[in-house]
């Protein structure tokens, strides 16, 4: 299949906004992503070290009422996210195993900083109780102060640190 261009950003934004509105209308909540990773970790720790999960203040709160961390709206939404991305990539001819990076850096550098970026991002998201989707975007759509503050904090910080990491991108 031939590779198609990306959708017009304003149109894609409207589509994303309607999906978020659907989440609010059907389920009374916003979208999320980092939470799905958290539930995966909670389930993995419970499977590998159930004693540790029971004693920890953090993990035990996820099992209080006999809940299963993977039988959860957000975890299923994240599974759907992967399926939806795959469908879009297939329809637009973008499915390909590749490492995307600036030609000025090695694959090793890209992968190292991708990993570090993931560690920082999700650590921060746990502290702020949500990431760009769950705290910033969904928060703004319900006029939550937390949403606006988190949004400004994420983007402000990325602009601030951009100079130090410019060799990775430009």
């Amino acid at each position: 299949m031939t590779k198609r261009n990306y959708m017009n950003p304003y149109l894609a934004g409207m589509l994303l906004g309607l999906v978020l509105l659907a989440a609010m209308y059907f389920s009374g909540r916003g979208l999320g992503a980092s939470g799905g990773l958290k539930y995966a970790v909670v389930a993995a720790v419970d499977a590998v070290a159930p004693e540790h999960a029971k004693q920890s203040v953090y993990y035990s709160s996820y099992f209080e009422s006999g809940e299963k961390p993977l039988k959860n709206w957000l975890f299923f939404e994240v599974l759907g996210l992967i399926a939806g991305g795959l469908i879009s990539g297939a329809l637009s001819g973008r499915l390909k195993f590749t490492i995307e990076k600036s030609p000025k850096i090695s694959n090793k550098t890209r992968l190292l900083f991708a990993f570090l970026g993931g560690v920082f991002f999700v650590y921060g998201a746990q502290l702020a109780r949500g990431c760009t989707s769950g705290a910033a975007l969904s928060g703004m759509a319900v006029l939550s102060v937390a949403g606006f503050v988190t949004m400004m904090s994420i983007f402000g910080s990325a602009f601030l640190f951009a100079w130090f990491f410019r060799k990775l991108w430009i």
Partner: protein
Amino acid sequence: MGPLSIFNNFPEWANLLTGFIIGIGFGFALEQAGFSSSRKLAGMFYGYDATVLKVFFTAAITALVGAQFLSYFGLLDLSLVYVNPYYINASIIGGVIMGAGFIMGGFCPGTGLCALSIGKIDAFLFLAGGLTGAFLFAETYPLLLPLATSGYKGPIKINEWMGVSAGVFSLLLIVAAVVMFWLAEKAEKKFAREI
């Protein structure tokens, strides 16, 4: 009347199925927007590609205005829609840590998952890092507890804090977004770069 899951008492399987289907729409929209590309996302911070700003603000405003219309026509009870609680310090410090992760990794968790779905190996590493970050947070949680719970303000709304109606605030946000879109289009021409 929505939220449908609350008024119709959705059983668990229906809730999970709803989550899955909404997730498909979420992933589809992110991928179509070009958010499966880290160089496109990072372009936001060097001015050569402002797609992030355009998609993000268009989406927020669409959902914000849509929710108010649904509420106005009696189709959605907004008091039953989750509003994120505000913990001043956690929101700001968490956001700063996320911003650093964004510029190092080129993804946020949602866009990372989206990029993984079309085969980006760097996104796989980003998410492996993400799982590590979630694990580190869980293990250091007792130490962070004072910071994570300090400055609690509750689920406060920005328009109430400013003393204006939701409609007036939305209008101000739309005007601000249009100005930012205009600046973004100019920046993309000035800092243009092939990716």
